[in-house]
Every structure is written in structure tokens, then in C-alpha cells.
């Protein structure tokens, strides 16, 4: 049976981001109005091993939420919920 590729069936998606999955802002999806500094679980997902803040270009977080996130991480560090830097 001949099968024509007439554009029907699975449409081929244009590969953006070099074939990787597109990034999105997790907080925008959840419509977060504030990021809690006590929520270590969420915050630590944005601070990889070394304890630094994950850059926006990697995480895809929008500018507004990145500012809120940084503020929350700094507070959490202050009260020893998150590390400043670890080797």
C-alpha cells in the first residue's frame, strides 16, 4: 500500500530550540503571585548542586518570576534553609 505524505497524520513540528523541548516559566503556568521562601522543595529545584541560582536562560523562568525567585532564595539562605555555596 502506498502511503502519501500529504501533510495529514502526524504533522511535523518545526524544531525550535535546536530540537529540544521548548522552555516555559513554571510559575506563569501555575499563575504564582508570590514565591514562598519557606518552600525549600521548589526553591532547591532552581539551585543545582553548587547552590547557585539557576540562570533564566537554562530554566526558562520569566523575568518577573526570576526576580521573585531570587528574593525567595536569598531569604531562604539567610535562615539556613538553603546553602550559600557548596563545593
Amino acid at each position: 500500500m502506498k502511503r502519501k505524505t500529504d501533510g495529514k497524520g502526524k504533522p511535523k513540528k518545526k524544531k525550535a530550540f535546536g530540537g529540544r523541548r521548548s522552555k516555559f516559566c513554571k510559575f506563569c503556568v501555575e499563575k504564582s503571585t508570590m514565591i514562598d521562601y519557606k518552600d525549600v522543595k521548589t526553591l532547591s529545584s532552581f539551585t543545582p548542586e553548587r547552590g547557585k541560582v539557576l540562570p533564566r536562560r537554562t530554566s526558562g523562568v520569566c523575568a518577573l518570576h526570576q526576580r521573585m525567585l531570587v528574593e525567595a532564595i536569598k531569604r531562604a539562605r539567610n535562615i539556613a534553609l538553603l546553602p550559600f555555596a557548596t563545593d
Partner: protein
Amino acid sequence: MRRYETIFVASPTLTDEQVDELVRHFEGIIAEQGGELLKTDKWGRKKLAYEVQKFSEGYYTLFELNAGPTLIAELERRFRNNDTVIKYLSVRMDVEAKAAERQKVRYDREAKRKAQAGIKDRSAEEVMG
């Protein structure tokens, strides 16, 4: 009156009873200085992310309160002078709440605009893949 969240870490050398006593002590100070305590949340013994005064653990306690700035200053002064308190942090929550409210308005406006334009919001699952 302003809304605050004050969190402090007590030394791990204390016993549970001593921590309870310490918490009551600070609750007393808040009441005495005309503050309105809304909630006390004892998190218990937790591991610290880094060493504080050579300790790697501490008892976390969270106060939610309505207070004036002088009470917070006094409370923080007591924290500093108390050897069994190794860390503390006060955050103004009324400012945070205001900012959150503004953000909510922004979301609502955006949702309305999208609804009028007939754009559907992508569902969380769809975005996450």
C-alpha cells in the same frame, strides 16, 4: 500595624521542653509589647543548609504576627542577645501580599484579554509535555 513573619532558629543543644519554654518566652514578649500573634508554627529539629556557630541542626519556629516596627526591633534585639537563638529573620508580609494582589490583577486582566481574543490557555499538562 504591619503584618510580619518572623522565623528563628534555636540552638540544638536545647531539649524540646527548653525550646517550648523559649517559644513561650517570645510569645510573652510579643503580647506584652502590644503585638497580635496570629500563628506559631513549630517546625521542630531540622538540618541546617550550612553550619551556624558550628551547629548543623536547629529548632525552627515561625511566628506570624501583626506588629509595629518598634516591636520587631525589640524582638530582634532579644534574639541577638539570646545565646540560644542562632538565626532569625523577619519579613514584612503586608508588602508581599500587596505585590501578590497586584500580580493577581495582572493575571486576571491577561486572562480576560485572552478570552476576548479567543485564545485558549494552554493547559499545564500540555505545556509540561
